């Protein structure tokens, strides 16, 4: 563009453009920060309000404000049904995520180390549980268990469903790590006389451990927060926190709900802060882990 202007106006024009350029640049930079700030506000305001209401006398809205209290937390922690469903969800998530982690780690080795027929099909089907809508997977598994296999919904069915749901998270994170893994380390250990199990335990596992941990964490959280699959795959004797919460949100008047929600936000915040400093979770989530960082 500059080359098209004539010689005589070149200098003046350039100065003018330079000033304009700097202003535009600064404006753009500022607006980028403003937009990003507003976005963070958008992400955070609803959660902040839940936390605030957890400490407030009034349960569902701020005005008129009626004062601060800790009663909501007392109510939540004293509720037997809440504790039972929390324990139920913990157990389901832990068992399901453990199964998903074992399956996912093995599958990651297969995908990164070996060539075999139908490998691409296998990889695609390993990701599908992540993208298929929960309602369809939930209904399909319910019909399958109840009408084809004659198994009534209960603890086992929901654990099986969640272990399948968690598999893609482990698979994606661990195989990404294995792709950058230097296999000559394993060869060296083998040459020095280590058997495959020892090589895995002493050489491979320490390197991929953060990725395995991140995969487990992901699968655990996905199982813990799932409602729709659990709805179709649990029976009356399986307590699940999300189902407990769902029924109370529908009634729209449950002061202990805000307290439970606030406790969950705090719990996740602590877990995340620890995970970010210990295992570089952000790297695994954003897919930016390199050999040096891992």
């Amino acid at each position, binding site marked *: 563009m500059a080359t098209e202007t004539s010689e005589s106006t070149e200098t003046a024009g350039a100065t003018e453009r330079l000033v304009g350029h700097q202003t535009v640049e600064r404006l753009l930079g500022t607006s980028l920060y403003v937009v990003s700030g507003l976005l963070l506000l958008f992400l955070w305001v609803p959660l902040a309000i839940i936390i605030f209401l957890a400490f407030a006398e009034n349960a569902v809205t701020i005005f008129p404000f009626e004062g601060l209290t800790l009663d909501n937390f007392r109510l939540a922690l004293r509720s037997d049904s809440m504790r039972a469903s929390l324990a139920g969800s913990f157990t389901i998530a832990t068992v399901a995520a453990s199964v998903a982690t074992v399956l996912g780690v093995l599958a990651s080795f297969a995908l990164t180390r*070996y060539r075999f027929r139908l490998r691409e099909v296998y990889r695609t089907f390993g990701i599908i549980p992540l993208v298929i809508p929960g309602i369809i997977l939930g209904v399909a598994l319910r019909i*399958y268990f109840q009408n084809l296999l004659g198994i009534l919904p209960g603890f086992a069915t929901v654990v099986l469903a969640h272990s399948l749901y968690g598999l893609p998270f482990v698979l994606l994170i661990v195989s990404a790590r294995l792709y950058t893994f230097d296999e000559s380390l394993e060869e060296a250990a083998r040459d020095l006389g280590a058997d495959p199990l020892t090589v895995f335990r002493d050489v491979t596992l320490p390197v991929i451990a953060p990725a395995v941990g991140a995969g487990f964490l992901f699968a655990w959280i996905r199982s813990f927060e799932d409602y729709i699959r659990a709805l179709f795959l649990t029976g009356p004797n399986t307590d699940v926190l999300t189902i407990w919460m769902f029924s109370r949100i529908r009634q729209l008047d449950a002061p202990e709900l805000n307290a439970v929600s606030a406790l969950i936000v705090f719990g996740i915040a602590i877990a995340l802060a620890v995970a970010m400093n210990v295992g570089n979770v952000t790297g695994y989530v954003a897919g930016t882990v390199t050999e040096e960082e891992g």
Partner: protein
Amino acid sequence: MAADEPDESARARAVRLLSGPRSRLGVTVGPSAAWILTLLVAPLAFMVAVSFFEVSSLTYQIVYEPTLNNYRSLFDGGGAIWNTPFVTALWLSYVIATVTTLLCLTLAFPLAYLLARSGGRLFKVVIFFVLLPFFTMYLVRAYSWVLMFGPGGVINSTLMSWGLIDAPLGIFNYGVPAIIVGLTHAYFPYMLLTLYASLDGLDFSILEAARDLGASRVEVLRDHVIPLTLPGIIGGSLFVFVPSVGAFITPTFLGQGKVQMIGMLIESRVAGTYSIGYASAASMFVLVSIVGAMILAFRYVSIEELGGA
């Protein structure tokens, strides 16, 4: 390596098993393949079959005689085809999911760009504040918007107490706008992280070079940034669009009975009357459209890029 004596034989067997390439493949592929076959492929195949069979409304048993009645019932409503609950719900779901995806894309791009260009402390702090809502239970986030919206919700009551409005505004009541906001809030981090992963690999000196050579900002964005980050854009859109189509919790809470999306329709037919034939047939339409979207997406991105890896 202080293996106990009784373990020794089991260990020896495991080592022998892991020595052959064939058995090694079997051990690594086998368990997850079995899981995928019995818990994903078989149930979906059975669902396809159920959609073509009659289901007894008395015993809930499947009558194994091929029929198209389930599909016919999707489009039977005693009126025009586009007025049946199924068609209305499916169409509304696509509209809501499309708007949500576009909203997430435009909102996430500036933040992803900023994150990719900045590093260090700021990055770590910002990513923490983005990830925390992301990891917070979906149900809690949906509930937080239940509190925000509604005639007496936080937004309306705050605006009224500040004297900005006299009566609750309709736009902040429950309904389609509330659902779109709720879904955007729920799936925004997927878009942000996928975009960030793809912008992070971008060589920013190319953009500076293009600017030096006289390209305008719009031209740089159109000719360089967007083509180079296309896998991220497509992957992120898929991650937002697909779950939005099948959303259940958010439209249930933020629609408050006024809106019915396809996920709610399927749920009500199964939970209410156990009409699994109808639900299976309806699911087929959702599945086919999702598979179509994925095939389209995979022409531009590989599945590894989709995982943000």
